[in-house]
């Protein structure tokens, strides 16, 4: 099967998956929910508000009519108006999501860097003290609750040291005009160096916190794939030819052992985005995590559901991209019939 065929098939599956997840949220919110109108309107809503909600979501119609409107609304990105924020939910997501993406992509890059190097290091020192140290380290970060990582960083690095303990940038500074929505990039485009610096400094702690809680998975994959590659003939040949041991490991072997890491990149994305719910809450970073925790606290259900759907769709899309990348890098995947 060619790359194109593989891509089309995977893309088709992903679309099905997205529709499926949206239907699943429908089942949860309209059928499983004990009283859908109350869920959507909040527990303390007045009778008129509930009437409005019933009309808005067609809750008095049969379920298939409700499903029809729900799907139409979702795929036209019309998630209604947030009762707590008083703005259309799609506008809210448009402002908050890029900020989280900015945080998450930086965190993912750091995760991958830490994961790849600790994994390679552990494999190169298999069953020696370096291996055990790496294992102990990722066991610790894996088992520690995300909020505790954030609190420890905040306590030791912010209160005792110089880094800012929270928020996205110095609140005294005006936000740059939204061009891409990624505020550091916007500040850069605008040439607003003060803001750019401030937001970068504010990103350091949340990014480290997110990377710390999610690098273990990459370390694990990297270590095992590196161990396999180190046994291959070409690495042995390289060492025999007189390429230094370090060069053979960190250059020759590292490149090929990176391939399986691609498969877990999507997983890391899902991880960091779930982690950022808690991390953003602690660092008062106003992104999706803030939006989700706020909507939870204030019974703002439309925002919560819309955030979930948007995040899930992006996870599915990133999964798809990772799969296609994997197929480009490693043609054996396509030929194997794409078994997961």
């Amino acid at each position, binding site marked *: 099967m060619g790359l194109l065929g593989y891509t089309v098939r995977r893309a088709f599956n992903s679309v099905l998956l997205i529709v499926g997840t949206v239907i699943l949220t429908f089942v949860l919110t309209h059928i499983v929910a004990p009283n859908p109108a109350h869920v959507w309107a909040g527990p303390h809503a007045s009778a008129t508000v509930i009437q409005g909600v019933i009309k808005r979501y067609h809750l008095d119609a049969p379920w298939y009519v409700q499903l029809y409107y729900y799907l139409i609304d979702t795929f036209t990105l019309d998630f209604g108006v947030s009762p707590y924020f008083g703005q259309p939910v799609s506008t809210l997501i448009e402002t908050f999501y890029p900020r989280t993406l900015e945080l998450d992509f930086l965190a993912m890059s750091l995760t991958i860097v830490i994961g790849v190097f600790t994994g390679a290091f552990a494999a190169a020192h298999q069953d020696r003290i370096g291996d055990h140290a790496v294992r102990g380290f990722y066991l610790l970060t894996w088992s*520690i609750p995300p*909020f*505790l990582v954030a*609190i420890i960083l905040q306590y030791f690095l912010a209160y005792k040291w110089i880094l800012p303990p929270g928020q996205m940038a110095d609140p005294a500074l005006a936000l740059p005009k939204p061009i891409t929505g990624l505020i550091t990039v916007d500040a850069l485009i605008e040439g607003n160096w003060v803001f750019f610096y401030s937001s970068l400094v504010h990103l350091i702690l949340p990014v480290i916190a997110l990377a710390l809680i999610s690098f273990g998975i990459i370390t694990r994959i990297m270590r095992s794939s590196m161990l396999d590659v180190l046994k291959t003939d070409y690495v042995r040949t390289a060492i025999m030819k007189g390429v230094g041991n370090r060069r053979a490991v960190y250059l020759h072997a590292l490149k090929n052992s990176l391939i399986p890491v691609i498969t877990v990149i999507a997983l890391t994305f899902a991880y960091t985005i779930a982690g950022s719910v808690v991390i953003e809450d602690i660092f008062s970073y106003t992104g999706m995590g803030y939006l989700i925790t706020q909507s939870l606290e204030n019974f703002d259900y439309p925002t919560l*559901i819309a955030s979930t759907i948007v995040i899930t769709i992006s996870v599915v899309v990133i999964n798809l991209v990772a799969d296609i990348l994997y197929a480009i890098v490693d043609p054996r995947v396509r030929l194997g019939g794409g078994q997961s």
Partner: protein
Amino acid sequence: MTAVTTYSRKRRFARTLRRLTRKIPSLIGLVIAVLFYGWSLVEGILQLIAKYFFYPPYVTPKLAWALLPYDPFEPSFQSTLSPPSFIHLMGTDELGRDIFSRVLYAAPTDAAISIVVVLFGVLIGGLLGLPAGYFGKGVEEVNMRFTDLFLAFPALILALVIEATLGRAVIFAIVALIVVWWPSYARLFRGEMLRIKNQKFIDAALLSGLSDTAIISRHALRASLNTILSYATIDLGNVILVYSILSFLGLGAPPPYPEWGSMVSSGLGYLQEAWWYSFLPGAVITGVVIGFALLGDGIRDILAGEQ
């Protein structure tokens, strides 16, 4: 089952336990797990008795904290936010309540949740995953597509939404955790089944005329449990970890009741003057989760050696 197989099975359990104590990491894990569940059992029984047998609502059921150093609900305004000492091992919170007592009081909830969620996860995952691997084709397609649907969501976020929909209570937190937990077991069971399916003993069972259900439930299930067991052990800790996040976000038991995650979050406001308030309950969570991870790794090493 003959006497010999019963005997060897009993011996096998004892032997596995003995081998777990030989390596220091798995020994640490075993000790943590035994202490955690042992304590939770005793304290949990006391709490249940106190709740259901002495229930006049105006009297505090003292039996539930008979074993604790202090009453976990009793404020004491002479000693608010006092640092860890021999009088208060983990210090006190803003109302002067002893944090160590509160941590101990909260343990049974976490213990019960971890066991219930993992058991149901294994059960549902097995029911969907084993037939998927065994029959392949249509059954596999349907079951695994269904599983993928749940796996597409980031687990924590799906759990949040489920609990927000159903209501905020421990029971709904359990439901939410089960819903996000079974899919990984369905995948595991399917993978195990694919590995087992082509082995000789399954062929033998087929030839001796056993039905598909009997083969799956009697032979394949038992063979796959080896792998599942170590995962389930590690997951006991992971469930506690994710539940602590839910409780940190205010989706656990309501306020007067102590809970590990919610204690960390209420300590956040006093982080600068009272570090112990957030750190120590958080450290307890970490310790328990590490314990189960070490134990699970130990079990995997032993069972993998036996296969």
